[in-house]
């Protein structure tokens, strides 16, 4: 496993720079695409064709919003993968967020804002817990988020007693509306993508984040706090999944309890198709978004 990881991560920075580094004049063209990524992309594409149920296929009309939601959660996943982890709590966070915006307001618009605040709090709590387990306790990301996911799914069962509810009309209107002819969901996805891309590639914060992903021990020696950046990653990821969950609930109005289930695999697929090496290291937001589009 070590050997394949190493080869992947050294050959990894393929798609690097397609997005934010466009203005860099001296950047050498990186055209070599590791066969692993191509293979993966092909296989994922193939399997997506095989399985109508895994990905959203309700109708062509609804494709753009679904792609947008997938992109939002995939960006969260990308951040975790870039840190060498994997977030398996996607389904739990999406479903739980959807449950909060359906159950808490009880369909009334007035309850929407507190419900959204609750969702944010949930995402913060989930992200902090995962971050703590991974960076301080040292639990493998896969295991920490798998356990977290189980707790969240238990929460979904507990709060709904198995019966789904409906979101307030306001949220539904927002999720379905268009601004200047563009669906709001798409606008949100684009904003999230732009912000994350800018932060990751252009800011001090983002560059340190990349350093942690590339070599955590070296990052620590270079005065970067692993706990802070690691935990921040899981918090951002949980926020992305929660945002997707809220919008998805608004879009569908009466979301099923297992609404998040299909987004875990599709999200990882989008990241991989988008060219982020699963061994950690570099990743591009644009690639991930394109991956999401491609998959939907």
């Amino acid at each position: 496993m070590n050997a394949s990881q190493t080869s992947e991560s050294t050959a990894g920075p393929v798609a690097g720079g397609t997005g934010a580094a466009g203005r860099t004049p001296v950047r050498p063209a990186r055209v070599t695409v590791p066969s692993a990524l191509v293979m993966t992309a092909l296989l994922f594409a193939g399997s997506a064709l095989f399985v109508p149920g895994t990905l959203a296929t309700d109708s062509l009309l609804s494709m753009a919003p679904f792609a947008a939601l997938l992109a939002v959660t995939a960006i969260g996943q990308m951040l975790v993968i870039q840190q060498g982890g994997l977030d398996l709590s996607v389904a739990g966070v999406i479903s739980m967020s959807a449950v909060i915006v359906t159950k808490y307001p009880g369909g009334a618009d007035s309850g929407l804002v507190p419900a959204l605040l609750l969702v944010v709090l949930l995402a913060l709590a989930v992200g902090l817990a995962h971050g703590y387990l991974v960076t301080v306790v040292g639990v493998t990301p896969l295991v920490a988020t798998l356990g977290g996911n189980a707790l969240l799914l238990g929460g979904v069962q507990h709060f709904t007693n198995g019966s789904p509810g409906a979101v307030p009309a306001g949220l539904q209107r927002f999720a379905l509306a268009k601004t200047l002819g563009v669906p709001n969901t798409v606008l949100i996805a684009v904003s999230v993508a732009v912000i994350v891309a800018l932060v990751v590639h252009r800011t001090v914060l983002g560059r340190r984040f990349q350093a942690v992903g590339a070599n955590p021990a070296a990052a620590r020696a270079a005065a970067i706090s692993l706990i802070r950046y690691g935990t921040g990653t899981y918090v951002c990821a949980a926020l992305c999944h929660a945002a997707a969950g809220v919008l998805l609930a608004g879009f569908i109005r009466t979301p099923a309890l297992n609404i998040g289930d299909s987004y875990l695999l599709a999200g990882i697929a989008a990241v991989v198709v988008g060219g982020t090496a699963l061994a950690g290291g570099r990743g591009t937001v644009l690639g991930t978004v394109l991956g999401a589009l491609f998959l939907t």
Partner: protein
Amino acid sequence: MTSDGPVNGPVLRLTGVTKRYPGVVALRSAELEVLPGEVHAIVGENGAGKSTLMAIAAGSLLADTGTVEICHQVMRHPSPSAAQELGLAVVYQQPALLPDLTVMENLVFAMLPAWRPPMSRAATWARERLDLVGADVGLHERISGLSVADRQLVEIAKALAMEPRVLILDEPTEALVAEDVERLFEQVRRFAATGTAVVYISHRLPEVRRIADRITVLRDGETRGTFNMADVTEEDVLRLIVGRPIDSTFPGKATGDGADPGAAPVLDLRAVSGPRFHDIDLRIRPGEVVGLAGMPGNGHHDLARAVAGLQRLDGEVRIQGAPVRPATPRRALDAGIVYVPGDRPREGLFKSLSVRENAAVLTLADRAKAGFVRRSQERSVTAAQVGALAVKTPSLETPAGTLSGGNQQKVVLARSLLARPRLLIAEEPTQGVDVGTRLEIYRILRGLADEGNAVLVVSSDTHELQGLCDRVVIFSRGRVCAELEGSEVTEEAITGAILKGSPSSAAATPYGKPVGAAAEPETGPPASRRSPSVPWAKRLMSGDHAPGIVLAVAALLLVAFGAAGNDQLLTPQNFEGLLYTMSALIFVSLGQMIAVVLGGIDLSIGPLTGFLVVVASFLATSGSVAGTVTAIAAMVVLAALVGVLNGSMIRLAGMSPVVATLVAFIVLQGVSLLLRPLPGGFIHDSVITGLHATIGFVPWVFVAAVVVAVAAEWVLRRTRWGLQLRAVGSDEPAAHRLAAKVTLTHILGYGACSVFAALGAIVLMGQNGIGDATAGLTYTFSSITAVILAGASIYGGRGSFLSAALGAVLIEVTINVSAFLDLNEAWRHWLLGILTLVAAALFCGFRGGRLFRRAASA
């Protein structure tokens, strides 16, 4: 060459060996002749071709032209095992040892069939091999717990076990301290005296001078001659190595003229203590280069790291008179303390990031506006610094990992200099750096001091300390035992002080720190030569079987607790059902355990189980014997196919296990849904009844599951297959060097993993009685939980099938008991989640987080 008798002729002869890589000639008609009974040194700069030459001799690399003769036989089909069979053994600088296996298992695993002892005699055999080299280590200690010196000895014992005529030692002293070097030299002289030819590769000329009879110099891929050691001086050799006369190896030392004697010391430590050092007072004046020396584990490395903010430190620290509390690397950096890590691949370099990004990482905020990095400024600043240090790199955007060792170190130095250090702490600044670049690095360090800064060098190279340092402080047992200044700073004096500082009894001497401790130097007392005594709980929890005991106790307690709450729990009917359900998860968890021992994971195992039941729901509906047999055969064959495909995707297409098995997950789930969009296809009653048959109230499938688990455990512990599985999972590159069939092991391993899933599916088929595409999904999570509960290392190499089975037992008992206690669906999720997290956190706590393992192995 002169003699023609086979006894006296060279036992290793390389003739006209040329090796080209794209764009580079690594070796050009290299010649080498090694005589029996001699110690033959090979010296040269990094990149001179030493490693290539040895790899060709050892059969692990194929030469373009030229021949290799070992014991007068030409190696016609070069391979590591061919070279070994002809009588050549190599002790690599990075020992090819498997960290998760025991000393004995490592020795046994490395043997070619002709030398392999039977498992029953392995212990005595291994003890003899170890005694031969004076290695005082426990047979059942894991390699990961040994000190570097002990690992080296185990590696040598391994090489000698195959009674080589030629023994190659590749930089054997790089990780050793003076005393261990002496012991090694004694052994080397002994082998040579018995007629073994020893090839000694090193760049430490003083050592070479002491041990070698003859010396061959390599430069730029060409052999520059072989000499009798007695006939040449060190300067002669150095000139041949570098290819130009060397005026002065080291830059001049501080004259003290420019320094203001009244100026505050740059670094002022007063009575500082930490985990491995006590009451240290140390002052470094502006312009001074001070060295710290001592045997590893005596606290000098820890002091340096603590001042850099990487370890705990109590006491008073002043930088230029101002009190500083370097509690974190960030605080230390802000105070002007910059640290150059000793372990460059692990802590120094971001291999995948570019030279520019590496150089800029410490000072990103200096060139930022509102949090955004100014790119043009960053480029010009890093380009200037990289240029000033003459880093040889194609461009600023080249990934730093592709540069040579010396240039990598210069990149790290460029980063450090950009941070304008007041105090630079450099640990082993020239380790793995060629001679030419060494000199440049010495000049850089001296130059920094000449500007009025302070430099603290921690080094195990006494030659370097003598040449570079104005003052050397020697540590012993966490305290300063000597301080040498000015003309006192000589190699002899430093070595003497190091040896004198330590108690004379070797057994009581801190003797190299285990590498595990080097990764987390914050914890624990100074590592002792023997495996340190650990708390019983920790020892228990870090064993392979221990988690199983805990799981069994937990399951029993749960049953007792549940029985107290509901008397229906302890009925035979409930137990029969519970044991039956349990059997399916036991089988699947055994499969998952294989993937995890291999260092991977199988996410597709759940959908596969479901898919196989769907398949059965088409074939096992008639109740005829033929139909049932066909169904079961189809399930096993399809499962094996899926497993082999998983393994192939991972090995042959280079996909990570997560991705590969995720693909399989999606495809299998899709196919299941296509075949059975809705549950349907009833398994014939006779099949179900057959599966549910019992012995007393115990279903026979449960008995089968237990028997299979015990058998699997036996295979894992006591057979070569099991050894190979763990070896590959523990350290794949090392396993490969040991001629393990890595790819085959992976493919067969995943195949076996899926076949276990098929066994689980057969049980599930009797439980559900109907083809349901979603029936198996939960098994992915449950089986991973079982394996985590079993304490398997998710990084591979460790695990126990018995514990995995007990993990499955605990999960099913938990679910069963919660049902009897009227806990709802939510509680099932919660209990599983809590079990997983608590188990994972506990094992991390007991074993020490392996958070940095990924970085360490990269």
